[in-house]
């Protein structure tokens, strides 16, 4: 059964990202990456990559192992600095001049490839820590959950099917549940743009279906980049697909077009 939250006609207020001041999205593009290159010890992991994402778009990025998908997310979130190129969030934010917390605070959230939750904290505390809001030392020290925030937390708990587990240590969850918890943390951050690295890994078919529902319901209000290996999953998302190969875009198009493309077939078979 689908939970109410996943139905498109029922969107909760808190799920609508707040407007980020000065973020001009009228040109329709939320993310610009131009001519970006990264070299690791002489190896070009990203090679003159150009990537644009429209506001509210859901985009899948596929590509063989080592194509540079995770590295691309590292660049956007400030973890890796490219050697050349530019990377802008809207027209205002030059992401290459910002660090990870700043980038998180302007509304870019990320789910890691290897699910990373705070294992020694409960599910509830994990979500609480991720919650959007001021994150300075003092405001964190005196922070108390108010009723509204508690409701929001409960709703997200229900959405990621972890209501019963809310006081369990996150380290005790199954792999799929950890993935969900991390997605829940992403939602608590209420970002404008979500970068989701291999969400389906370790999930059952049912869990995958729910993830597809969730991601498609978030699109529109959020701009989303999904990296995934599972082709069935990508097909179900029914979005534009970008194929990455050796750190550059090989092609872009619908899933059907991509699967028919000779170069893509060659890259995947050549592995």
């Amino acid at each position, binding site marked *: 059964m689908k939970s109410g939250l996943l139905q498109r006609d029922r969107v909760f207020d808190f799920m609508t990202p707040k407007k980020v001041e000065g973020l001009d999205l009228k040109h329709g593009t939320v993310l610009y990456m131009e001519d970006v290159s990264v070299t690791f010890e002489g190896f070009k992991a990203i090679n003159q990559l150009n990537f644009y994402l429209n506001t509210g778009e859901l985009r899948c990025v596929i590509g063989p192992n080592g194509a540079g998908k995770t590295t691309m997310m590292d660049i956007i979130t400030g973890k890796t600095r490219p050697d050349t190129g530019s990377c802008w969030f809207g027209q205002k934010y030059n992401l290459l001049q910002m660090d990870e917390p700043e980038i998180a605070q302007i509304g870019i959230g990320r789910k890691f490839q290897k699910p990373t939750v705070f294992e020694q904290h409960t599910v509830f505390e994990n979500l609480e*820590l991720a919650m959007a809001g001021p994150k300075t030392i003092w405001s*964190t020290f005196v922070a108390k959950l108010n009723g509204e925030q508690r409701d929001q937390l409960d709703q997200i708990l229900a959405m990621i099917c972890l209501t019963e587990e809310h006081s369990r240590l996150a380290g005790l969850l199954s792999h799929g549940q950890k993935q969900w918890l991390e997605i829940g943390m992403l939602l608590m951050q209420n970002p404008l743009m979500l970068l989701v690295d291999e969400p389906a890994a370790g999930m059952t078919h049912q869990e995958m279906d729910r993830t597809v529902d969730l991601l498609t319901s978030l699109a529109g209000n959020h701009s989303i980049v999904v990296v995934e290996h599972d082709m069935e999953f990508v097909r179900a998302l029914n979005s534009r697909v970008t194929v990455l190969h050796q750190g550059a875009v090989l092609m872009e198009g619908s899933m059907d077009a991509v699967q028919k493309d000779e170069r893509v077939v060659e890259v995947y078979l050549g592995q």
Partner: protein
Amino acid sequence: MGLLRMLKNDKGGQIFLGVLVATLIAVPILHALPTDHPLHLSTYMVTLLGKYLTYALLAVAVDLVWGYLGILSLGHAAFFALGGYAMGMYLMRQIGERGVYGDPVLPDFMVFLNWTELPWFWHGFDMFWFAILMAMCLPGLLALVFGWLAFRSRVTGVYLSIITQALTYALMLAFFRNEMGFGGNNGLTDFKDILGFSLQDDGVRVGLFIASGLMLGLGYLACRVIIQSRLGRVAVAIRDAEDRTRFIGYRVERVKLAIFTFSAMLAGIAGALYVPQVGIINPSEFQPLNSIEVVVWVAMGGRATLYGAVIGAIGVNYAKTWFTGAFPDAWLFALGALFVFVTLFLPRGIAGLFKHSLLRKRAKV
């Protein structure tokens, strides 16, 4: 009340604070008994216990940064010693004309070095409140500068531990130098009074013991308040997944800096209480081994519990006092053996044992 609510979830803390209060009441009473009474506690014992309490406060400070924030500081003895020096400077100025050379202002060692004027950094230390303030602020300032440099460049793990060792070693070498103006390798000693009362006085000894116990209790509560706040949960998050914490928008460096600095100030207070009880502070307090020993206390007592640090500090130091009396040369071997035993068989330390039996009991009900 918030404090009571906080303690409700902290079984170990309740027991610890209960025992602490009982000790603070019992020790002065036992000490007041006539000398020939079998339960009489000698002044020597009172002071020894007071010294253990200051070690316990130091261990709590280390557990805060190691247990909850994941920073294995091998340099906390430096903050302890700096606090000790601040107090030592006050105690030196209290000597006044009663020094060997009878100079009303200059401590003996300065007269001996043919100095004619008090160095600028010795001014103000004739006032108790100033010395106490400095005993907190100097270690805090050092931690702030050191931490700012280290955390900003994202030095973590073993490398960070090694540079904390280097920090305390460098300070030891500096304090050994006579020109530094802290008494060189003899350090500061021959203290007479504190706040106008003789340090030899039994009542003063008991007073220092009680002050150490109160500060330990307050320090424990302050750390608890931090840990139980969301900031404390962020600290644990940093300990377990530093990158993740950054990507949800927390300024990891600042959180580390704030808690590390607070911890250094606690260590400084511990040092300031330690010096009047042992009667001397010299550069050997900075030696790298001292900082390592503190970490061993915490590991043995049980990391990330706070009260475990107290158990470890008092337990190991009691063993040390006994051992160095019985087999003076064997202490380090015994400590090493004990450490190996605890890491192998009690990975959660002595407090872990206690927690385990609590959980068991709950499971049976």
